[in-house]
Protein backbone atom coordinates (compact mmCIF):
# COMPACT_ATOMS: atom_id res chain seq x y z
CA UNK A 1 0.00 0.00 0.00
CA UNK A 2 2.80 2.37 0.89
CA UNK A 3 4.60 1.57 -2.35
CA UNK A 4 1.48 2.38 -4.31
CA UNK A 5 1.07 5.73 -2.64
CA UNK A 6 4.61 6.61 -3.45
CA UNK A 7 4.07 5.70 -7.08
CA UNK A 8 1.00 7.86 -7.26
CA UNK A 9 2.79 10.85 -5.82
CA UNK A 10 5.68 10.29 -8.16
CA UNK A 11 3.40 10.09 -11.15
CA UNK A 12 2.12 13.63 -10.65
CA UNK A 13 5.57 14.89 -9.88
CA UNK A 14 7.03 13.11 -12.89
CA UNK A 15 4.47 14.59 -15.22
CA UNK A 16 5.20 18.08 -13.87
CA UNK A 17 8.93 17.57 -14.20
CA UNK A 18 8.54 16.49 -17.81
CA UNK A 19 6.66 19.71 -18.51
CA UNK A 20 9.31 21.90 -16.88
CA UNK A 21 12.06 19.93 -18.62
CA UNK A 22 10.40 20.41 -21.98
CA UNK A 23 10.25 24.16 -21.55
CA UNK A 24 13.86 24.37 -20.39
CA UNK A 25 15.04 22.15 -23.25
CA UNK A 26 13.22 24.31 -25.78
CA UNK A 27 14.80 27.38 -24.20
CA UNK A 28 18.30 25.94 -24.46
CA UNK A 29 17.79 24.90 -28.08
CA UNK A 30 16.54 28.33 -29.06
CA UNK A 31 19.28 30.14 -27.18
CA UNK A 32 21.89 27.98 -28.92
CA UNK A 33 20.34 28.79 -32.27
CA UNK A 34 20.55 32.48 -31.45
CA UNK A 35 24.17 32.22 -30.26
CA UNK A 36 25.29 30.39 -33.38
CA UNK A 37 23.37 32.88 -35.51
CA UNK A 38 21.22 30.20 -37.08
CA UNK A 39 17.92 31.97 -36.75
CA UNK A 40 16.33 34.90 -38.52
CA UNK A 41 15.70 38.06 -36.55
CA UNK A 42 12.04 37.66 -37.45
CA UNK A 43 11.93 34.39 -35.57
CA UNK A 44 13.87 35.87 -32.72
CA UNK A 45 11.21 38.53 -32.40
CA UNK A 46 8.69 35.75 -31.82
CA UNK A 47 10.39 34.39 -28.73
CA UNK A 48 8.74 36.69 -26.20
CA UNK A 49 5.27 36.35 -27.79
CA UNK A 50 5.73 32.58 -27.58
CA UNK A 51 6.15 32.90 -23.82
CA UNK A 52 3.22 35.31 -23.59
CA UNK A 53 0.85 33.03 -25.46
CA UNK A 54 2.04 29.98 -23.56
CA UNK A 55 1.32 31.68 -20.25
CA UNK A 56 -2.08 32.78 -21.56
CA UNK A 57 -2.90 29.25 -22.69
CA UNK A 58 -1.83 27.76 -19.35
CA UNK A 59 -3.87 30.28 -17.41
CA UNK A 60 -6.95 29.89 -19.58
CA UNK A 61 -6.69 26.13 -19.26
CA UNK A 62 -7.09 26.57 -15.52
CA UNK A 63 -10.49 28.18 -16.15
CA UNK A 64 -11.64 26.04 -19.06
CA UNK A 65 -10.10 22.67 -18.24
CA UNK A 66 -9.89 22.58 -14.46
CA UNK A 67 -12.74 24.84 -13.39
CA UNK A 68 -14.75 23.72 -16.41
CA UNK A 69 -16.15 27.12 -17.35
CA UNK A 70 -15.84 28.49 -20.86
CA UNK A 71 -14.39 31.99 -20.66
CA UNK A 72 -14.24 34.09 -23.82
CA UNK A 73 -12.83 37.26 -22.28
CA UNK A 74 -9.41 36.16 -21.20
CA UNK A 75 -7.64 38.79 -23.28
CA UNK A 76 -9.40 41.37 -21.11
CA UNK A 77 -7.41 40.26 -18.08
CA UNK A 78 -4.26 40.36 -20.16
CA UNK A 79 -5.18 43.94 -21.07
CA UNK A 80 -5.62 44.90 -17.41
CA UNK A 81 -2.29 43.37 -16.49
CA UNK A 82 -0.58 45.05 -19.41
CA UNK A 83 -1.86 48.52 -18.56
CA UNK A 84 -1.35 48.17 -14.80
CA UNK A 85 2.22 46.97 -15.31
CA UNK A 86 3.08 49.53 -17.96
CA UNK A 87 1.55 52.34 -15.92
CA UNK A 88 3.67 51.39 -12.93
CA UNK A 89 6.82 51.13 -15.03
CA UNK A 90 6.18 54.48 -16.64
CA UNK A 91 5.65 56.18 -13.28
CA UNK A 92 8.61 54.55 -11.61
CA UNK A 93 11.02 54.70 -14.52
CA UNK A 94 14.29 55.94 -13.08
CA UNK A 95 12.98 55.97 -9.53
CA UNK A 96 14.25 52.46 -8.79
CA UNK A 97 16.64 49.97 -10.39
CA UNK A 98 15.27 48.51 -13.64
CA UNK A 99 15.31 44.90 -12.48
CA UNK A 100 13.37 45.55 -9.29
CA UNK A 101 10.99 47.86 -11.12
CA UNK A 102 10.15 45.14 -13.65
CA UNK A 103 9.57 42.54 -10.95
CA UNK A 104 7.27 44.99 -9.15
CA UNK A 105 5.48 45.72 -12.43
CA UNK A 106 4.87 42.00 -12.94
CA UNK A 107 3.53 41.59 -9.42
CA UNK A 108 1.30 44.63 -9.76
CA UNK A 109 -0.02 43.45 -13.13
CA UNK A 110 -0.79 40.05 -11.63
CA UNK A 111 -2.47 41.43 -8.53
CA UNK A 112 -4.59 43.99 -10.38
CA UNK A 113 -5.71 41.43 -12.97
CA UNK A 114 -6.47 38.90 -10.21
CA UNK A 115 -8.49 41.53 -8.38
CA UNK A 116 -10.52 42.22 -11.50
CA UNK A 117 -10.90 38.48 -11.98
CA UNK A 118 -12.27 38.25 -8.47
CA UNK A 119 -14.69 41.18 -8.92
CA UNK A 120 -15.91 40.02 -12.33
CA UNK A 121 -16.03 36.44 -11.10
CA UNK A 122 -18.56 37.23 -8.38
CA UNK A 123 -21.44 37.90 -10.82
CA UNK A 124 -20.13 35.85 -13.74
CA UNK A 125 -19.51 32.57 -11.94
CA UNK A 126 -23.15 32.40 -10.92
CA UNK A 127 -23.88 31.61 -14.54
CA UNK A 128 -23.23 28.39 -16.37
CA UNK A 129 -22.12 27.24 -19.81
CA UNK A 130 -23.14 29.41 -22.75
CA UNK A 131 -24.36 32.24 -20.52
CA UNK A 132 -21.06 32.46 -18.73
CA UNK A 133 -19.20 32.43 -22.04
CA UNK A 134 -21.27 35.31 -23.40
CA UNK A 135 -20.93 37.43 -20.25
CA UNK A 136 -17.15 36.93 -20.08
CA UNK A 137 -17.00 37.90 -23.73
CA UNK A 138 -18.86 41.07 -22.85
CA UNK A 139 -16.57 41.87 -19.92
CA UNK A 140 -13.52 41.37 -22.13
CA UNK A 141 -14.82 43.92 -24.61
CA UNK A 142 -15.86 46.34 -21.87
CA UNK A 143 -12.38 46.32 -20.37
CA UNK A 144 -10.76 46.95 -23.73
CA UNK A 145 -13.11 49.82 -24.56
CA UNK A 146 -12.84 51.39 -21.12
CA UNK A 147 -9.07 51.48 -21.36
CA UNK A 148 -9.45 53.27 -24.68
CA UNK A 149 -11.16 56.30 -23.13
CA UNK A 150 -8.98 56.50 -20.05
CA UNK A 151 -6.64 59.46 -19.59
CA UNK A 152 -4.18 59.63 -16.73
CA UNK A 153 -1.59 62.32 -16.25
CA UNK A 154 0.87 63.32 -13.60
CA UNK A 155 2.31 66.66 -12.59
CA UNK A 156 3.69 68.24 -9.45
CA UNK A 157 0.25 68.07 -7.80
CA UNK A 158 -0.11 64.33 -8.26
CA UNK A 159 -2.26 62.24 -10.55
CA UNK A 160 -5.12 63.47 -12.73
CA UNK A 161 -7.81 61.30 -14.26
CA UNK A 162 -10.23 61.96 -17.06
CA UNK A 163 -12.44 60.00 -19.38
CA UNK A 164 -12.86 62.81 -21.90
CA UNK A 165 -9.53 63.92 -23.35
CA UNK A 166 -6.00 64.89 -22.40
CA UNK A 167 -6.90 68.58 -22.16
CA UNK A 168 -9.50 68.06 -19.47
CA UNK A 169 -6.87 66.57 -17.17
CA UNK A 170 -6.17 70.19 -16.18
CA UNK A 171 -2.50 69.66 -15.52
CA UNK A 172 0.22 72.21 -15.06
CA UNK A 173 2.74 72.92 -17.79
CA UNK A 174 5.27 70.37 -16.57
CA UNK A 175 2.66 67.61 -16.48
CA UNK A 176 3.11 64.39 -18.37
CA UNK A 177 0.24 62.35 -19.80
CA UNK A 178 0.84 58.68 -18.97
CA UNK A 179 -2.19 56.96 -20.44
CA UNK A 180 -3.46 58.77 -23.50
CA UNK A 181 -6.82 57.19 -24.22
CA UNK A 182 -6.83 55.36 -27.51
CA UNK A 183 -3.18 56.14 -28.02
CA UNK A 184 -2.43 54.13 -24.90
CA UNK A 185 0.90 54.20 -23.17
CA UNK A 186 3.95 55.16 -25.18
CA UNK A 187 7.61 54.63 -24.44
CA UNK A 188 7.23 51.82 -21.95
CA UNK A 189 10.68 50.56 -20.96
CA UNK A 190 11.44 47.42 -22.96
CA UNK A 191 12.34 44.99 -20.23
CA UNK A 192 10.89 41.76 -21.61
CA UNK A 193 13.47 39.27 -22.73
CA UNK A 194 13.20 35.66 -23.75
CA UNK A 195 14.90 34.55 -20.53
CA UNK A 196 12.45 36.45 -18.34
CA UNK A 197 9.57 35.12 -20.43
CA UNK A 198 10.68 31.55 -19.93
CA UNK A 199 11.16 32.08 -16.20
CA UNK A 200 7.65 33.51 -15.95
CA UNK A 201 6.27 30.62 -17.97
CA UNK A 202 7.96 28.18 -15.60
CA UNK A 203 6.53 30.03 -12.61
CA UNK A 204 3.06 29.98 -14.18
CA UNK A 205 3.38 26.24 -14.84
CA UNK A 206 4.62 25.69 -11.29
CA UNK A 207 1.65 27.54 -9.82
CA UNK A 208 -0.97 25.88 -12.01
CA UNK A 209 0.38 22.32 -11.81
CA UNK A 210 0.87 22.47 -8.05
CA UNK A 211 -2.55 24.03 -7.63
CA UNK A 212 -4.18 21.19 -9.57
CA UNK A 213 -2.39 18.54 -7.54
CA UNK A 214 -3.37 20.01 -4.20
CA UNK A 215 -6.41 19.97 -1.97
CA UNK A 216 -7.80 23.17 -3.52
CA UNK A 217 -7.33 21.92 -7.06
CA UNK A 218 -9.11 18.72 -6.17
CA UNK A 219 -11.99 20.75 -4.77
CA UNK A 220 -12.16 22.81 -7.99
CA UNK A 221 -12.23 19.67 -10.13
CA UNK A 222 -14.84 18.10 -7.87
CA UNK A 223 -17.03 21.16 -8.43
CA UNK A 224 -16.43 20.88 -12.18
CA UNK A 225 -17.43 17.21 -12.19
CA UNK A 226 -20.52 17.48 -10.02
CA UNK A 227 -21.51 20.62 -8.21
CA UNK A 228 -24.29 19.06 -6.13
CA UNK A 229 -22.10 16.22 -4.91
CA UNK A 230 -19.26 18.63 -4.12
CA UNK A 231 -21.64 20.68 -2.00
CA UNK A 232 -22.91 17.56 -0.25
CA UNK A 233 -19.40 16.75 1.00
CA UNK A 234 -18.97 20.27 2.33
CA UNK A 235 -16.89 21.93 -0.38
CA UNK A 236 -17.40 25.70 -0.52
CA UNK A 237 -18.41 26.17 -4.17
CA UNK A 238 -18.14 29.96 -4.42
CA UNK A 239 -14.78 30.13 -2.69
CA UNK A 240 -13.03 27.62 -4.90
CA UNK A 241 -14.60 28.82 -8.14
CA UNK A 242 -13.50 32.38 -7.39
CA UNK A 243 -10.07 31.19 -6.34
CA UNK A 244 -9.43 29.33 -9.59
CA UNK A 245 -10.83 32.18 -11.68
CA UNK A 246 -8.71 34.81 -9.89
CA UNK A 247 -5.51 32.79 -10.22
CA UNK A 248 -6.27 32.33 -13.88
CA UNK A 249 -6.87 36.07 -14.32
CA UNK A 250 -3.72 36.92 -12.37
CA UNK A 251 -1.56 34.77 -14.62
CA UNK A 252 -3.14 36.38 -17.66
CA UNK A 253 -2.12 39.68 -16.07
CA UNK A 254 1.49 38.46 -15.91
CA UNK A 255 1.36 37.66 -19.60
CA UNK A 256 -0.02 41.16 -20.14
CA UNK A 257 2.88 42.82 -18.31
CA UNK A 258 5.29 40.80 -20.42
CA UNK A 259 3.43 41.93 -23.52
CA UNK A 260 3.46 45.59 -22.48
CA UNK A 261 7.20 45.59 -21.86
CA UNK A 262 7.91 43.97 -25.19
CA UNK A 263 6.57 46.90 -27.20
CA UNK A 264 7.27 50.60 -27.19
CA UNK A 265 3.63 51.52 -27.63
CA UNK A 266 0.84 49.84 -25.77
CA UNK A 267 -2.67 50.37 -27.12
CA UNK A 268 -5.82 48.41 -26.47
CA UNK A 269 -6.75 47.37 -30.00
CA UNK A 270 -9.21 44.67 -30.99
CA UNK A 271 -6.20 42.93 -32.51
CA UNK A 272 -4.26 42.43 -29.31
CA UNK A 273 -6.83 42.43 -26.52
CA UNK A 274 -10.08 41.85 -28.35
CA UNK A 275 -12.41 38.98 -29.00
CA UNK A 276 -10.16 37.41 -31.64
CA UNK A 277 -7.28 37.19 -29.21
CA UNK A 278 -9.46 35.48 -26.60
CA UNK A 279 -10.62 32.97 -29.19
CA UNK A 280 -7.06 32.41 -30.36
CA UNK A 281 -6.01 31.49 -26.84
CA UNK A 282 -9.03 29.25 -26.50
CA UNK A 283 -7.90 27.50 -29.68
CA UNK A 284 -4.53 26.77 -28.05
CA UNK A 285 -6.29 25.31 -25.04
CA UNK A 286 -8.71 23.19 -27.02
CA UNK A 287 -6.07 21.96 -29.42
CA UNK A 288 -3.61 21.18 -26.65
CA UNK A 289 -6.28 19.31 -24.76
CA UNK A 290 -8.78 20.72 -22.29
CA UNK A 291 -7.30 20.22 -18.84
CA UNK A 292 -3.93 19.23 -20.30
CA UNK A 293 -1.49 21.92 -19.19
CA UNK A 294 1.52 20.61 -21.06
CA UNK A 295 -0.57 20.36 -24.21
CA UNK A 296 -1.54 24.03 -23.98
CA UNK A 297 2.09 25.08 -24.04
CA UNK A 298 2.87 22.86 -27.01
CA UNK A 299 -0.19 24.06 -28.91
CA UNK A 300 0.55 27.72 -28.16
CA UNK A 301 4.11 27.38 -29.40
CA UNK A 302 3.20 25.36 -32.47
CA UNK A 303 0.35 27.61 -33.54
CA UNK A 304 2.37 30.79 -33.02
CA UNK A 305 5.27 29.46 -35.04
CA UNK A 306 3.22 27.90 -37.80
CA UNK A 307 2.16 31.10 -39.61
CA UNK A 308 5.74 32.37 -39.48
CA UNK A 309 7.23 29.14 -40.76
CA UNK A 310 4.83 29.23 -43.68
CA UNK A 311 5.52 32.82 -44.56
CA UNK A 312 6.86 31.79 -47.96
CA UNK A 313 3.47 30.41 -48.87
CA UNK A 314 2.07 33.93 -48.59
CA UNK A 315 -1.70 34.05 -48.86
CA UNK A 316 -2.11 30.31 -48.65
CA UNK A 317 -0.76 30.10 -45.13
CA UNK A 318 -4.01 30.89 -43.35
CA UNK A 319 -5.66 28.20 -45.45
CA UNK A 320 -3.06 25.66 -44.37
CA UNK A 321 -3.33 26.90 -40.81
CA UNK A 322 -7.04 26.14 -40.84
CA UNK A 323 -6.47 22.71 -42.35
CA UNK A 324 -3.86 21.91 -39.70
CA UNK A 325 -6.31 22.94 -36.98
CA UNK A 326 -9.09 20.78 -38.35
CA UNK A 327 -6.70 17.88 -38.85
CA UNK A 328 -5.43 18.13 -35.29
CA UNK A 329 -8.95 18.29 -33.85
CA UNK A 330 -9.99 15.24 -35.83
CA UNK A 331 -6.89 13.34 -34.81
CA UNK A 332 -7.57 14.15 -31.16
CA UNK A 333 -11.30 13.57 -30.99
CA UNK A 334 -12.61 11.44 -33.85
CA UNK A 335 -13.46 7.96 -32.51
CA UNK A 336 -11.58 6.20 -35.31
CA UNK A 337 -8.48 8.29 -34.72
CA UNK A 338 -8.71 7.61 -31.00
CA UNK A 339 -8.89 3.90 -31.70
CA UNK A 340 -5.89 4.14 -33.98
CA UNK A 341 -3.86 6.02 -31.43
CA UNK A 342 -4.69 3.59 -28.67
CA UNK A 343 -3.79 0.65 -30.88
CA UNK A 344 -0.40 2.06 -31.79
CA UNK A 345 0.42 3.93 -28.60
CA UNK A 346 4.02 3.31 -27.52
CA UNK A 347 2.83 2.38 -24.05
CA UNK A 348 0.65 -0.42 -25.35
CA UNK A 349 3.26 -1.68 -27.81
CA UNK A 350 5.83 -1.83 -25.03
CA UNK A 351 3.46 -3.69 -22.78
CA UNK A 352 2.70 -6.13 -25.60
CA UNK A 353 6.38 -6.76 -26.22
CA UNK A 354 6.91 -7.40 -22.55
CA UNK A 355 3.99 -9.80 -22.44
CA UNK A 356 5.35 -11.67 -25.45
CA UNK A 357 8.74 -11.93 -23.86
CA UNK A 358 7.24 -13.29 -20.68
CA UNK A 359 5.17 -15.77 -22.62
CA UNK A 360 8.31 -17.15 -24.17
Amino acid at each position, binding site marked *: MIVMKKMKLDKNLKSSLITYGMVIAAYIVMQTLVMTDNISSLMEGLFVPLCIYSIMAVSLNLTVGILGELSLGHAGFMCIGAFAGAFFSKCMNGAMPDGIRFVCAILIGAVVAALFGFLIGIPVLRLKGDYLAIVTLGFGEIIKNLVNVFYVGRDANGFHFSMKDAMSLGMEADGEVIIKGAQGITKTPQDSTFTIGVILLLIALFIVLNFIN*SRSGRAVM*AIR*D*NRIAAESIG*INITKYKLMAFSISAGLAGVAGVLYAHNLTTLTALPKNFGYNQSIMILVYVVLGGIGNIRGSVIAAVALTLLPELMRSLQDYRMLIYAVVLIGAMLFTWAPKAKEFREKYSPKRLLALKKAQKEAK
Partner: protein
Amino acid sequence: MAMLEVQGLGISFGGLCAVDRFNLKIEKGQLYGLIGPNGAGKTTIFNLLTGVYKPNNGRVTLDGQNITGKSTIEINQAGIARTFQNIRLFPKLTVLDNVKAGLHNNHPYSTLEGILRLPKYRKVEKEMDEKAMELLKVFDLDGYADVLAANLPYGKQRKLEIARALATDPKLLLLDEPAAGMNPNETQELMDTIRFVRDHFDMTILLIEHDMRLVSGICEELTVLNFGQVLCQGKTSDVLNDPQVITAYLGE
Protein backbone atom coordinates in the same frame (compact mmCIF):
# COMPACT_ATOMS: atom_id res chain seq x y z
CA MET B 1 -30.72 11.52 23.32
CA ALA B 2 -31.71 10.68 19.80
CA MET B 3 -29.14 11.08 17.01
CA LEU B 4 -31.68 12.64 14.67
CA GLU B 5 -34.94 14.19 15.71
CA VAL B 6 -37.33 15.68 13.20
CA GLN B 7 -40.48 17.45 14.34
CA GLY B 8 -43.32 18.68 12.17
CA LEU B 9 -41.17 19.07 9.07
CA GLY B 10 -43.04 20.42 6.04
CA ILE B 11 -42.43 21.97 2.64
CA SER B 12 -44.64 22.88 -0.25
CA PHE B 13 -43.74 23.73 -3.82
CA GLY B 14 -46.35 26.18 -5.05
CA GLY B 15 -49.65 24.60 -4.12
CA LEU B 16 -48.23 21.11 -3.74
CA CYS B 17 -47.59 20.03 -0.19
CA ALA B 18 -44.66 17.65 -0.79
CA VAL B 19 -43.95 16.84 2.85
CA ASP B 20 -46.31 17.57 5.71
CA ARG B 21 -45.94 17.23 9.49
CA PHE B 22 -43.14 14.72 9.18
CA ASN B 23 -41.75 13.35 12.44
CA LEU B 24 -38.79 11.05 12.86
CA LYS B 25 -36.58 9.90 15.68
CA ILE B 26 -33.48 7.83 15.12
CA GLU B 27 -31.32 6.57 17.97
CA LYS B 28 -27.56 6.40 17.70
CA GLY B 29 -26.35 3.29 15.89
CA GLN B 30 -29.73 2.51 14.42
CA LEU B 31 -30.37 1.30 10.88
CA TYR B 32 -33.54 3.06 9.88
CA GLY B 33 -35.56 2.67 6.69
CA LEU B 34 -37.74 5.18 4.89
CA ILE B 35 -40.08 3.60 2.37
CA GLY B 36 -43.11 4.58 0.37
CA PRO B 37 -44.53 4.62 -3.15
CA ASN B 38 -42.96 6.72 -5.91
CA GLY B 39 -43.55 10.40 -5.37
CA ALA B 40 -44.28 10.00 -1.67
CA GLY B 41 -41.63 12.58 -0.79
CA LYS B 42 -38.76 10.40 0.41
CA THR B 43 -35.98 12.12 -1.53
CA THR B 44 -37.54 15.48 -0.68
CA ILE B 45 -37.05 14.60 2.98
CA PHE B 46 -33.39 13.80 2.29
CA ASN B 47 -33.06 17.14 0.53
CA LEU B 48 -34.65 18.86 3.50
CA LEU B 49 -32.38 17.11 5.98
CA THR B 50 -29.25 18.02 3.99
CA GLY B 51 -30.21 21.63 3.37
CA VAL B 52 -30.80 21.40 -0.38
CA TYR B 53 -34.33 22.65 0.34
CA LYS B 54 -35.25 24.90 3.24
CA PRO B 55 -38.29 23.65 5.16
CA ASN B 56 -41.36 25.87 5.48
CA ASN B 57 -41.89 24.65 9.00
CA GLY B 58 -40.59 22.12 11.47
CA ARG B 59 -37.37 21.50 13.31
CA VAL B 60 -34.41 19.20 12.70
CA THR B 61 -31.99 18.34 15.50
CA LEU B 62 -28.83 16.34 14.97
CA ASP B 63 -27.25 15.00 18.13
CA GLY B 64 -28.73 17.87 20.13
CA GLN B 65 -27.72 20.55 17.63
CA ASN B 66 -30.40 22.49 15.80
CA ILE B 67 -29.64 22.34 12.08
CA THR B 68 -32.96 23.57 10.68
CA GLY B 69 -32.56 25.74 7.60
CA LYS B 70 -28.75 25.58 7.60
CA SER B 71 -26.82 25.38 4.33
CA THR B 72 -25.70 22.11 2.77
CA ILE B 73 -22.10 22.77 3.71
CA GLU B 74 -22.91 23.61 7.33
CA ILE B 75 -25.08 20.53 7.64
CA ASN B 76 -22.32 18.36 6.22
CA GLN B 77 -19.93 19.81 8.76
CA ALA B 78 -22.46 19.23 11.51
CA GLY B 79 -22.34 15.54 10.61
CA ILE B 80 -24.77 14.45 7.90
CA ALA B 81 -23.42 12.85 4.73
CA ARG B 82 -25.47 11.41 1.91
CA THR B 83 -25.45 9.45 -1.30
CA PHE B 84 -27.69 10.10 -4.28
CA GLN B 85 -30.40 8.12 -6.01
CA ASN B 86 -28.70 8.71 -9.37
CA ILE B 87 -25.02 8.28 -8.60
CA ARG B 88 -23.13 11.55 -8.39
CA LEU B 89 -19.43 10.84 -8.35
CA PHE B 90 -16.64 13.01 -9.71
CA PRO B 91 -16.23 11.00 -12.93
CA LYS B 92 -12.99 12.57 -14.14
CA LEU B 93 -11.20 12.18 -10.82
CA THR B 94 -9.59 8.93 -9.76
CA VAL B 95 -11.25 6.72 -7.19
CA LEU B 96 -8.64 7.80 -4.65
CA ASP B 97 -9.21 11.49 -5.39
CA ASN B 98 -12.96 11.05 -5.02
CA VAL B 99 -12.45 9.91 -1.46
CA LYS B 100 -9.79 12.56 -0.85
CA ALA B 101 -12.29 15.20 -1.97
CA GLY B 102 -14.50 13.86 0.82
CA LEU B 103 -11.63 14.36 3.27
CA HIS B 104 -11.36 17.98 2.14
CA ASN B 105 -12.76 19.73 5.20
CA ASN B 106 -11.21 17.63 7.93
CA HIS B 107 -7.68 17.78 6.52
CA PRO B 108 -6.99 21.42 5.83
CA TYR B 109 -3.95 23.24 4.54
CA SER B 110 -3.95 26.54 2.72
CA THR B 111 -3.80 26.95 -1.05
CA LEU B 112 -0.46 28.71 -0.75
CA GLU B 113 0.97 25.81 1.22
CA GLY B 114 -0.25 23.56 -1.58
CA ILE B 115 1.28 25.61 -4.37
CA LEU B 116 4.62 26.05 -2.61
CA ARG B 117 4.66 22.41 -1.47
CA LEU B 118 5.48 23.35 2.11
CA PRO B 119 6.03 20.57 4.69
CA LYS B 120 2.42 20.83 5.86
CA TYR B 121 1.27 19.94 2.35
CA ARG B 122 3.29 16.73 2.37
CA LYS B 123 2.20 15.81 5.86
CA VAL B 124 -1.52 16.38 5.31
CA GLU B 125 -1.54 14.80 1.84
CA LYS B 126 0.13 11.74 3.32
CA GLU B 127 -2.50 11.54 6.05
CA MET B 128 -5.20 11.90 3.41
CA ASP B 129 -3.71 9.16 1.26
CA GLU B 130 -3.56 6.80 4.20
CA LYS B 131 -7.06 7.59 5.38
CA ALA B 132 -8.48 7.31 1.86
CA MET B 133 -6.79 3.97 1.18
CA GLU B 134 -8.10 2.69 4.50
CA LEU B 135 -11.64 3.62 3.49
CA LEU B 136 -11.22 2.12 0.03
CA LYS B 137 -10.00 -1.10 1.59
CA VAL B 138 -13.18 -1.34 3.64
CA PHE B 139 -15.16 -1.30 0.41
CA ASP B 140 -12.74 -3.55 -1.42
CA LEU B 141 -11.90 -0.73 -3.82
CA ASP B 142 -8.23 -0.32 -2.95
CA GLY B 143 -7.21 -2.10 -6.15
CA TYR B 144 -9.02 0.56 -8.16
CA ALA B 145 -7.41 3.59 -6.50
CA ASP B 146 -5.91 4.95 -9.72
CA VAL B 147 -8.90 4.19 -11.95
CA LEU B 148 -11.12 7.06 -13.04
CA ALA B 149 -14.42 6.93 -11.16
CA ALA B 150 -16.33 6.98 -14.47
CA ASN B 151 -14.72 3.67 -15.44
CA LEU B 152 -15.84 1.75 -12.36
CA PRO B 153 -18.58 -0.84 -12.71
CA TYR B 154 -21.98 0.27 -11.44
CA GLY B 155 -21.98 -1.61 -8.15
CA LYS B 156 -18.54 -0.31 -7.27
CA GLN B 157 -19.62 3.25 -8.07
CA ARG B 158 -22.37 2.88 -5.46
CA LYS B 159 -19.79 1.72 -2.96
CA LEU B 160 -17.42 4.53 -3.82
CA GLU B 161 -20.19 7.03 -3.19
CA ILE B 162 -20.70 5.58 0.28
CA ALA B 163 -16.94 5.68 0.89
CA ARG B 164 -16.79 9.32 -0.17
CA ALA B 165 -19.70 10.18 2.14
CA LEU B 166 -17.96 8.40 5.03
CA ALA B 167 -14.77 10.35 4.32
CA THR B 168 -16.47 13.49 5.63
CA ASP B 169 -16.60 11.74 9.02
CA PRO B 170 -20.38 12.00 9.53
CA LYS B 171 -22.52 11.03 12.49
CA LEU B 172 -25.47 10.16 10.31
CA LEU B 173 -25.35 8.60 6.86
CA LEU B 174 -28.24 9.01 4.44
CA LEU B 175 -28.42 6.44 1.64
CA ASP B 176 -30.84 7.18 -1.19
CA GLU B 177 -31.84 3.88 -2.84
CA PRO B 178 -28.44 2.21 -2.51
CA ALA B 179 -29.66 -0.99 -4.17
CA ALA B 180 -31.24 0.64 -7.22
CA GLY B 181 -30.23 -1.18 -10.36
CA MET B 182 -28.43 -3.99 -8.55
CA ASN B 183 -28.94 -7.68 -9.11
CA PRO B 184 -29.83 -9.95 -6.13
CA ASN B 185 -26.19 -10.95 -5.57
CA GLU B 186 -25.02 -7.36 -5.52
CA THR B 187 -27.89 -6.44 -3.20
CA GLN B 188 -26.88 -9.19 -0.81
CA GLU B 189 -23.31 -7.91 -0.87
CA LEU B 190 -24.55 -4.37 -0.31
CA MET B 191 -26.57 -5.46 2.73
CA ASP B 192 -23.42 -6.92 4.26
CA THR B 193 -21.53 -3.72 3.47
CA ILE B 194 -24.17 -1.51 5.08
CA ARG B 195 -24.25 -3.64 8.20
CA PHE B 196 -20.46 -3.61 8.29
CA VAL B 197 -20.37 0.19 7.96
CA ARG B 198 -22.78 0.51 10.86
CA ASP B 199 -20.71 -1.76 13.10
CA HIS B 200 -17.23 -0.76 11.97
CA PHE B 201 -17.78 3.02 11.95
CA ASP B 202 -20.36 3.03 14.73
CA MET B 203 -22.64 4.80 12.25
CA THR B 204 -26.28 5.76 12.34
CA ILE B 205 -27.87 5.08 8.97
CA LEU B 206 -31.11 6.26 7.40
CA LEU B 207 -31.90 4.73 4.03
CA ILE B 208 -34.52 4.99 1.33
CA GLU B 209 -35.16 1.76 -0.50
CA HIS B 210 -37.69 0.00 -2.65
CA ASP B 211 -36.09 -3.42 -2.43
CA MET B 212 -38.17 -5.07 0.31
CA ARG B 213 -35.64 -7.86 0.75
CA LEU B 214 -33.01 -5.32 1.72
CA VAL B 215 -35.40 -3.32 3.89
CA SER B 216 -36.71 -6.28 5.83
CA GLY B 217 -33.21 -7.75 5.95
CA ILE B 218 -31.33 -4.93 7.60
CA CYS B 219 -33.60 -2.14 8.82
CA GLU B 220 -34.56 -2.23 12.47
CA GLU B 221 -37.26 0.37 12.23
CA LEU B 222 -39.25 1.82 9.38
CA THR B 223 -41.25 4.85 8.47
CA VAL B 224 -43.71 4.53 5.61
CA LEU B 225 -44.48 7.69 3.72
CA ASN B 226 -47.49 8.24 1.50
CA PHE B 227 -48.43 11.52 -0.19
CA GLY B 228 -45.93 13.40 1.93
CA GLN B 229 -47.34 12.17 5.23
CA VAL B 230 -46.32 9.46 7.64
CA LEU B 231 -48.51 6.43 7.12
CA CYS B 232 -46.96 4.19 9.70
CA GLN B 233 -43.91 4.05 11.93
CA GLY B 234 -42.33 1.36 14.08
CA LYS B 235 -40.52 -1.97 14.14
CA THR B 236 -39.88 -3.36 10.67
CA SER B 237 -41.92 -6.55 11.10
CA ASP B 238 -44.89 -4.69 12.56
CA VAL B 239 -44.85 -2.05 9.86
CA LEU B 240 -44.62 -4.49 6.98
CA ASN B 241 -47.64 -6.39 8.31
CA ASP B 242 -49.75 -3.31 8.83
CA PRO B 243 -52.85 -3.54 6.60
CA GLN B 244 -52.64 0.19 5.75
CA VAL B 245 -49.08 -0.20 4.48
CA ILE B 246 -49.99 -3.26 2.47
CA THR B 247 -52.80 -1.41 0.69
CA ALA B 248 -50.82 1.74 0.04
CA TYR B 249 -47.48 0.34 -0.92
CA LEU B 250 -46.94 -3.38 -1.00
CA GLY B 251 -50.22 -4.33 -2.67
CA GLU B 252 -52.60 -6.95 -1.48
